[in-house]
C-alpha cells in the first residue's frame, strides 16, 4: 500500500482547545467609527467574557490598538482569534506570550487617609513605586503602574485602609524585541 500507510487514522489527534491560562490579545484595528462596537459586540454575542479592555491610538493615526485580556481556561483562544479575524476592520491579532512581551496596567486609588495612617500609606506607595498624585484633607489619590499582579497586590494592601474609589486601565502590552 506504500505511501498511504504513513497516515493511519488511529494516529490522528486533535489539539487541546483550552489553554488554561490568562491571555493578553493585542489587536490592531482600522481607526474607523464603530470598530470598538464591532469587537465588543462580537465578544458578547459569542459569549466570550473580556476581563479587561484598553483602547488607544498607535504610531499610525489610521490604526488603533485594542488590548484585551481573557481567560483561556474558559474560552478557546483559537476560536476567539478566528472570530475576531472575521471582522473586516481587524488587521492583526497577537496573542502576547508572557515571556516575550511586556504588559502593564495603570490604576488610581483613592484611599481615606486620616492623619494617623497617612505615613503607612506613603510607605506602601514607596514599596510599590506608586505616586501620591493628590492630597486632600480626608483622602489621598495614589497612582500605580505595573503588572496585573502587582496592582492586585497593591490593592489588597490598601483595602484595609478604606478604599474609597479606584479605577484601572486594563492591561496594555507590547511584544519584546525589534519586530
Amino acid at each position: 500500500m506504500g505511501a498511504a500507510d504513513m497516515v493511519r487514522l488511529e494516529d490522528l489527534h486533535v489539539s487541546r482547545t483550552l489553554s488554561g491560562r490568562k491571555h493578553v490579545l493585542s489587536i490592531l484595528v482600522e481607526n474607523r467609527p464603530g470598530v470598538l462596537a464591532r469587537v465588543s459586540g462580537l465578544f458578547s454575542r459569542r459569549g466570550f467574557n473580556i476581563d479587561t479592555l484598553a483602547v488607544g491610538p498607535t504610531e499610525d493615526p489610521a490604526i488603533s490598538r485594542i488590548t484585551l485580556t481573557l481567560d483561556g481556561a474558559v474560552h478557546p483562544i483559537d476560536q476567539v482569534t478566528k472570530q475576531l479575524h472575521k471582522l473586516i476592520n481587524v488587521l492583526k491579532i497577537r496573542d502576547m506570550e508572557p515571556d516575550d512581551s511586556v504588559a502593564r496596567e495603570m490604576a488610581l486609588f483613592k484611599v481615606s487617609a486620616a492623619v494617623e495612617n497617612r505615613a503607612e500609606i506613603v510607605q506602601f506607595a514607596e514599596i510599590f513605586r506608586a505616586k501620591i498624585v493628590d492630597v486632600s484633607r480626608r483622602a489621598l489619590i495614589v497612582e500605580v503602574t505595573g503588572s496585573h499582579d502587582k496592582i492586585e497586590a497593591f490593592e489588597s494592601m490598601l483595602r484595609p485602609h478604606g478604599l474609597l474609589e479606584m479605577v484601572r486601565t486594563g492591561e496594555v502590552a507590547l511584544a519584546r524585541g525589534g519586530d
Partner: protein
Amino acid sequence: MRAADALMESLKHEGVDHIFGIPGGANLPTYDALVDADLRHVQVMHEQAGGHAAEGYAHASGKVGVAFGTSGPGATNLVTAIADAMMDSVPTVFITGQVRTELIGTDGFQEADIVGVTLPIVKHSLLCTEADHIPQYIHEAFHIASTGRPGPVLVDVPTDLSKEEIEYSPPTGPVELPGYRPNLEGNSKQIRIAAKAVANARRPIVYSGGGVVNANASEELREFVTCDNFPITSTLMGLGAFPADHPQWLGMLGMHGTRTANYGMDEADLIIAIGARFDDRITGKLSEFAPNAKFIHIDIDPAEISKNVPAHIPIVGDAKRVLPKLTREYRSLQTDTARLEGWWSRIKAWQDEYPLTYEPGTEGEIKPQFMVEMMHKVTGGDAIITSDVGQHQMWAAQYYGFNKPRRWINSGGLGTMGFGLPSAIGAKVACPDEEVVCLAGDGSLIMNIQELATAVNQDVPVKIFLQNNGYMGMVRQWQELFWDERYSGVENGPSPDWVKLAEAFGAKGLRCDDSADLEEMMEATIAHDGPALLDVRTSPRENCYPMIPAGNAARDMVG
C-alpha cells in the same frame, strides 16, 4: 456627478441588473437616480420580502442580490432578511437610506441606527460619512459580500450625501482590504495528508454542505466522490450539489435525514466535511456525534473549523480549488476500492431496511410526501423549488430528489417562515426561463402573501404549491411528540380562503383535495400564463419522519 447617480454607476459596474426595494424619504435621491439608470427595479410590497427576493436571486444565480430600503422602518423591515442571509451565507448587499448627516443621533424623523441594529447579523456594514466614499464603499460591499464565505453587507447612505456632486470614475483594480484576505487555495501538505487518511479509511463518508453550492463546485465534488466508491450525504443547504439519483448518494443527513445517512455518520471511521458547518441539526448530542470518526474539514472560513467538532485534518480553502487537488492526490496513491466493500454492504443493508417511505393515504387523501413526489413528476424534477419553513420544507428535502445545484432555495439557518414566496420571485427574476415553484406552508405563506401582488404587478410568473395541512405542522408535531399533545397556537383556522385571496391579488387560484386530481391540477397551475396558487389540502396530522429528537444521537432516530 450626483452621488446617487454615481451609486447607480457603481452598481452597474458590479454587474447588478436587478434591485428589489421600496422608496421613502431618505432614499428619494437613490430612487430619483434609478429613473435614468438602466437597472430593473422590482418594487416589492414589504422590505423584508425585498430582502428575501434578493436572497432568492442570489441563490438561483450565484450573483449578489441587492435590496433597497429607506431609513427607519424601511431599514428595520430588512432585518429578518439580513439575519437570514447571514445564517445561510447568502451574498447580498442591502442599501438603506439614512437621515441627513446633521440629524444622525438626534432621533430625527425615521431615524434608526440600522448599522448598530444589524452589527451582529452582517458580514460587514458601512455607514457613509462622505459623499466621495459612496462608490468605493459599494465596491467594497460587493467584494466582501461575494468572496470568501459570502454574506450580507449593509451600506447606509445619509440622504444629504446622495445629493452631493462628486467625482466618479469606475474602479480600475480589484478591491484591496488589508483586514480581509480570504484563503482560497488550501494547504497542499494538509491536502496530501487528507488524501492519505482517506486512502486508509475503511468506513469513510463525505458530508457536504451549502459551501459546495456556493463554491459552484458540484463537478469537483462529483469527481472526488466518484474517484472511488465513497458514500456521500449532504446537509439541507447542500442538496443538489451531488445528484440524488446517483448510486453513491445516501440522502440528506441530520434531524430529518435518512437513517442510512445518519447511521453512516455514526459508524464512519473518517468523515470528510466539505463546506458544511456541523450545525446542531446535524450533530444532535455533540458528545455522541460520530463517535468512531476522525474528521477532515474543508471550509473557506477558518472560524468554522473546530468550532463545534474538533477537526483532525483542517483545510482552509475554497472547495472549488481544494477538491481537485484532493482528488489528484488520492488518485496518485495506490488504493484498494475493495476495502470499501464491507462498508457498502452495511450501507446497503440500511438502505434496504430503512428506505424513505410513508403510509399510503386513504382513498383520495393527499399525503404531503406524495404531493412532493408529484411536484417532481410534474416539473420533471428540474424546477427551481423554493420553500417556506416547516414540515413541508423537510418533505421537499426528502422527496424531491434534487439533481442539480441552485435548484433548492430555502431558509435553513434562521428558518424564516415566509421565505418561500419572495425568494421565488427573486429566483424567477434571476432565471426567467426556469420553472420556479414555491412549496409553501399555510402558516408560512401568509407571512409574506402580499408579495403575490408583486408577482402580478411586476409580471413574475411564479407558481405556489401550498401544502395546506391547516396547522403550524412542524410545531404541532413537536407538541404531539414531546409536549404530551398539549396543542397550543398551532391551529391555523378556516381563514383565509386561499383561492379567493389569490384571485383578489389578480393571480390564478386553484384548489385540490383529491389525490386523483393532483397531477392534473398541478399541471394546470404550471400551464397558467402568470402567477398561480394551488391550495392543496394535505393530511392534517401527518408527522415528518424519520427524526432525531433534538439533542439526541443519530442512533436514537425515531419513525
